[in-house]
């Protein structure tokens, strides 16, 4: 095993959380190495078809599923940029009540931080990424103007607005992390429908287009094809190094003053569990027993309306241009979960795949209406449950000989009932918009992976402190969606970015004060 020169920070995983920390620490003058298991793909190399993004999760990222798992997750994004390569760029903030679900509704847990702590970081991240939107939505917590004007509605968005208007619901321009005008040296969006496969122009904000180049410019070193196998401790119980295998299978040990994990809510707990040692026999930083528990995924159902008259122009943008937030926060006394209704325009393959139960002539018939389709999906807040969890598979190992993640994640009856309610509302919108028929796709998975290393003030009931630092190992941080306490009903990436930014500020400040090993 080759030992590498010690650095200040070793980040594992180059998604939105990891690249944020790498960028901030490098800009603060710290020496940073980022280990990324996947490859680097430049925007110009993004291919050609909508299937590609899904392929990244393929045989490279094996996991096993409990047979009861609902709609197993397929959205992993193992590459520089992580899942922001194929995200749909919806940059909704949490509602302020989303941080206090236990106090208000008696479900889940309260976050140890709230709107006051996070709002300034939302501002920072929106400005850095470039978010186009329109403030003043009464369903949201009050906020200032967005850095960019909203995108104009596409033709399907206009149709949906017509339906929502009739019902008295507010179909509002969605805040999207894609340029509506030239911003930050990146061009405005051309609405090419390639968002789910990687943006070929760079108009879309991603960890690859925004944080990665800044981190590199500030001196951070990214090593691709490098799979972290273990976080090692020194005799004092502090993180000392990360062991990893490169593409050739050679084993290296990267020593660091600080270790920051950001591999998503499945692979981050897997790495901690793989790093069990005599001090932490049940997994590193797992004295609470909560590493891997409370996996949340935002159950989703796509609803499709067939409208009269073909949509012949201005239809193809895969990102969400409009959103109904009227129901994204539950009223007191109601079932506590909220749901959003978001517009999306899939390409034909994704559309045919979403209707996974259709085949033969029924599929043919369905797809003949492709140019008459308007899509509105319902996505709901699911709550943390210890029984929805990631463990190490006792039998199945990956190509490196390491136990794969075993995922048990069952949507509850309440989740499914709320999803049906959301889909009913989506179909009401579609019908009011003039759809002559409506369909619901099978219930699905968003790939919003959250909650498996939750933050909190109490080390007995949380893995991380409010700054994403593990309670057990002071120089170890987890900065991806794992740190979520509850998932809210909105797309999580903006919040992941805001929390990672806040965590980085704390980490840098603590490092300056000498809190970590010299």
């Amino acid at each position, binding site marked *: 095993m080759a030992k590498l020169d010690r650095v200040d920070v070793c980040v594992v995983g180059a998604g939105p959380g990891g690249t944020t920390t790498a960028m901030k620490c490098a800009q603060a003058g710290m020496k940073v190495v980022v280990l990324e298991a996947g490859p680097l793909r430049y925007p110009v190399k993004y291919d050609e078809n909508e299937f*590609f993004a899904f*392929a990244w999760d393929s045989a490279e990222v094996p996991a096993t599923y409990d047979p009861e798992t609902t709609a197993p997750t397929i959205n992993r994004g193992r590459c520089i940029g992580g899942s922001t390569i194929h995200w749909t760029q919806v940059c909704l903030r949490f509602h302020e009540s989303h941080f206090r679900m236990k106090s208000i509704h008696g479900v889940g847990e309260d976050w140890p931080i709230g709107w006051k702590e996070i709002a300034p970081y939302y501002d920072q991240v929106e400005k850095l990424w470039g978010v186009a939107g329109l403030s003043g939505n009464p369903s949201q917590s009050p906020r200032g103007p967005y850095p960019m004007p909203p995108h104009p509605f596409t033709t399907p968005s206009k149709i949906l607005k017509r339906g929502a208007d009739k019902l008295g619901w507010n179909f509002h321009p969605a805040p999207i992390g894609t340029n509506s005008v030239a911003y930050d040296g990146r061009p405005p969006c051309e609405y090419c429908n390639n968002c789910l496969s990687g943006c070929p122009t760079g108009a879309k904000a991603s960890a690859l287009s925004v944080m990665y180049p800044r981190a590199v410019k500030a001196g951070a070193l990214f090593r691709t094809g490098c799979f972290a196998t273990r976080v090692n401790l020194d005799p004092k119980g502090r993180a000392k190094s990360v062991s990893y295998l490169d593409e050739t299978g050679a084993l290296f040990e990267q020593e660091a003053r600080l270790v920051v994990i950001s591999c998503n809510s499945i692979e981050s707990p897997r790495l901690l569990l793989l790093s069990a040692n005599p001090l932490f026999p049940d997994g590193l930083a797992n004295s609470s027993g909560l590493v891997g528990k409370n996996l949340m995924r935002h159950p989703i159902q796509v609803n499709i309306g067939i409208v009269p008259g073909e949509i012949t122009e201005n239809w193809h943008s895969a990102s969400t241009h409009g959103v109904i937030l009227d129901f994204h926060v539950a009223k007191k006394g109601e079932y506590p979960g909220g749901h959003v209704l978001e517009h999306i325009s899939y390409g034909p393959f994704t559309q045919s795949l979403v209707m996974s139960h259709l085949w*033969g002539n029924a599929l043919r018939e369905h797809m003949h209406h492709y140019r008459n389709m308007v899509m509105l999906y319902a996505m709901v807040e699911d709550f943390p449950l210890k029984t929805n969890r990631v463990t190490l598979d006792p039998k199945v190992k990956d190509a490196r000989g390491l136990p794969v993640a075993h995922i048990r994640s069952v949507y509850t009856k309440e989740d499914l009932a709320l999803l049906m309610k959301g889909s009913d509302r989506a179909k009401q919108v579609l019908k009011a918009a003039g759809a002559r028929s409506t369909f619901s796709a099978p219930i699905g998975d968003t790939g919003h992976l959250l909650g498996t290393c939750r933050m909190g003030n109490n080390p007995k009931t949380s893995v991380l402190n409010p700054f994403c630092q593990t309670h057990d190992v002071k120089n170890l941080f987890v900065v991806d969606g794992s740190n979520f306490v509850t998932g809210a009903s909105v797309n999580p990436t903006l919040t992941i970015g805001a929390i990672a930014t806040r965590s980085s500020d704390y980490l840098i400040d603590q490092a300056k004060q000498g809190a970590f090993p010299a």
Partner: protein
Amino acid sequence: MIQAITRRQFVETTLRTAALSAAALYLGPNLIRTRAAIAADPGLKFLTPEEAVTIAAACARIIPSSPAEPGATEAGAAGVIDFVCANTPPLRPLYRGGAAGLNETAKALHQKAFAKITPAEQDAILASVQVGKAAGKAWKQIPSPVFFFVLQLHTKSAYYTNPLSFKFTGYPGIYHQSHKRHG
């Protein structure tokens, strides 16, 4: 307050989605490169000729061809699946076992291989495979809904990302297909 759904609805919903189990392992490669590679070297790389005929017959029922419209056959879906298997080892047992299962079930019901029975008979078998009700020893090794899920996924990807389908969906093609300057 929203209504709690019934136990039956819950079970049905869960069953519908259970077919996705383990599918994450089986999602395939970039199809444009795949098509180019197959065109350069059209021979079978993993499937046996008999398996290829069986899989091609199943694909042709997932997306049937008609005089008016091409389908999985014209899109070369079985060749794509062969290529995917050759390049994705975890997929191999699924298709090998699935092809064996289709033939076993067809022989038990009709005394003929799956590719030799009528389209209506093939459809009935595929419908039973989709919901996990197909009879046969092979389906004890390979969960038939998982096989069906992956089969429909690859067949749809072979056809609906192929420009020959765009005329029938009205899809102009994504960026690299519709913007020649990047082609």
